[in-house]
C-alpha cells in the first residue's frame, strides 16, 4: 500500500510513518510532503493508495488540498488529520472529498484502526 503523508509538521509526519510501518508499509511505500504544494505534485507523481493530509498547513488549507486533488481526478481514499474538530469543519472536509477525518491528538491504535477500516471499506461507501 503506497501512502502519501502531507503535513507541514515533521513531528506528525514521523509519528504517522511509524504507525504505517507498524501496519506493514515499507519505507519505500511511504512518501511525505512538507507542504500542500509539494503534496499536490507528489499525488500526481507517486499515485498513492492513501493520502493522509493535515487539516491546516502554512501554504494551504487541508480542505482546499482535498478539493484540489479530487478536482484533478484522484479517487483513492483521503484521510484528513486535523486539530480542529468542529462539526462544520468535518462536514467541509467530507464535502470536499475526504474519506475520513481523524482528530489530533490521536493514539497510534486509533489511527491504525481508522486506516485499516478505511482501506477495507468498499470504494463507493461514503463516510457519512
Amino acid at each position, binding site marked *: 500500500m503506497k501512502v502519501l503523508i502531507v503535513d507541514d509538521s515533521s513531528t506528525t509526519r514521523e509519528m504517522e510513518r511509524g504507525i504505517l510501518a507498524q501496519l506493514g508499509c515499507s519505507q519505500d511505500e511511504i512518501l511525505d510532503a512538507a507542504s500542500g504544494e509539494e503534496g499536490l505534485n507528489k499525488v500526481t507523481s507517486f499515485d498513492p493508495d492513501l493520502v493522509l493530509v493535515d487539516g491546516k498547513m502554512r501554504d494551504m488549507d487541508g480542505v482546499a488540498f482535498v*478539493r484540489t486533488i479530487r478536482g484533478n481526478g484522484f479517487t483513492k481514499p483521503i484521510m484528513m488529520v486535523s486539530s480542529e474538530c468542529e462539526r462544520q469543519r468535518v462536514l467541509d472536509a467530507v464535502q470536499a472529498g475526504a474519506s475520513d477525518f481523524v482528530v489530533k491528538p490521536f493514539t497510534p491504535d486509533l489511527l491504525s484502526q481508522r486506516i485499516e477500516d478505511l482501506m477495507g471499506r468498499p470504494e463507493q461507501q461514503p463516510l457519512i
Partner: protein
Amino acid sequence: MAVSGVWERDHFWTSRQFHPRRAGWLGFLLMDAGRWRGQWVWGAMSGTESSRARRRTGKAGGNRVGLCALCALQRMRAALSILHEALARVSTEAASDCESWRETVWLVSGPSPDDPCRKSAVSQQFIQPVTEVIEHVFDVLLAMPVEVGARTLALAGDRDADLVGSVVLSGAITGVIAICLPMSTARRLVGLLKGHELGEDEEEALRDATGELVEMLAGGMKSRLSPTGTKMSCAEVVGGGDRIIQDDGQSRLVLPCMCECGAFSVEISCRLHAEPRAGAMSGSGSGA
C-alpha cells in the same frame, strides 16, 4: 501578602511620581530552566498598607504613596533568597513526585482577591476548558498525566521559557493561546514523542513539536468554547525572549502545569464574543 516575612511595612515614602497601583503590585515568576520549578511569588502592598502609609505621611489626596526603590530592591532580594532556598529544597526531590512538589514548592495558593483576572468573568470561562484540553492532549499524545496548578495573572516581562508556541484565534474567540516550555521540558516531551533522546542540533524538531502541541491545545479549546465561528492561525514558535503574546488590554492568564517531563505553562489571552467578529482571518478556517 503571599510571602510572609519578606515585606516590611515601614519603608514607605511619599512621592508625586509614584502611583500606588503601579508601585504596589510586585510579582515575579521564577522558573528553573531545568526541571519544573515554576512558581509565583506575589508581593502586594495591600490597600490597608497604602492607607496606613498615607496616614503616616499625614497627607491626603495630593501625595501618592510609593515604594522606595532601594527598599523595593532589598525586598526583592529577600524574596529571591526565599525562593532560592525553596528551589534548593525541591531540587532534591524526584521530578515525578507531583504531590510532594505541590506541597513544598507552591508558595502561593493563588492570586489575591484584588487580582484583576479574578474579576474577569470572560477570562474565567477559559480556565476549565483549557485545563481539560491540556489534560486530554497529554493523556492521548503521551499517555502522561498533567497537573494544572492555580492560574495566575501574567505581568509584562515575566517570562522564563525557552520556547513559546502560540496560536492566534479570531472570530467568536479572539486572542492568543500559548504554551511556554523550558528547554529541558521541551527536550523530554519531544524525545518521548519521537521515541528517542534528542540531540543538541535538533532545535527545529523542538520548535515543530511545540507548534503541534499548541495547535492541538487551540483546536481543542475552540471546539469546546465555540463550536462555530472561530478560526485559528498556524502556530508560531519563538524563543522565550521574543514572545508574541498579543495584548489589547485584556488580562492574560497563566496556567502552570507539571508533568513527568517537567514544568511548562499555558497562557491564554482571549476574549469570547457572543457573535463572530467581522474581519476574522481568512484562509485559515474551514475553507468551504
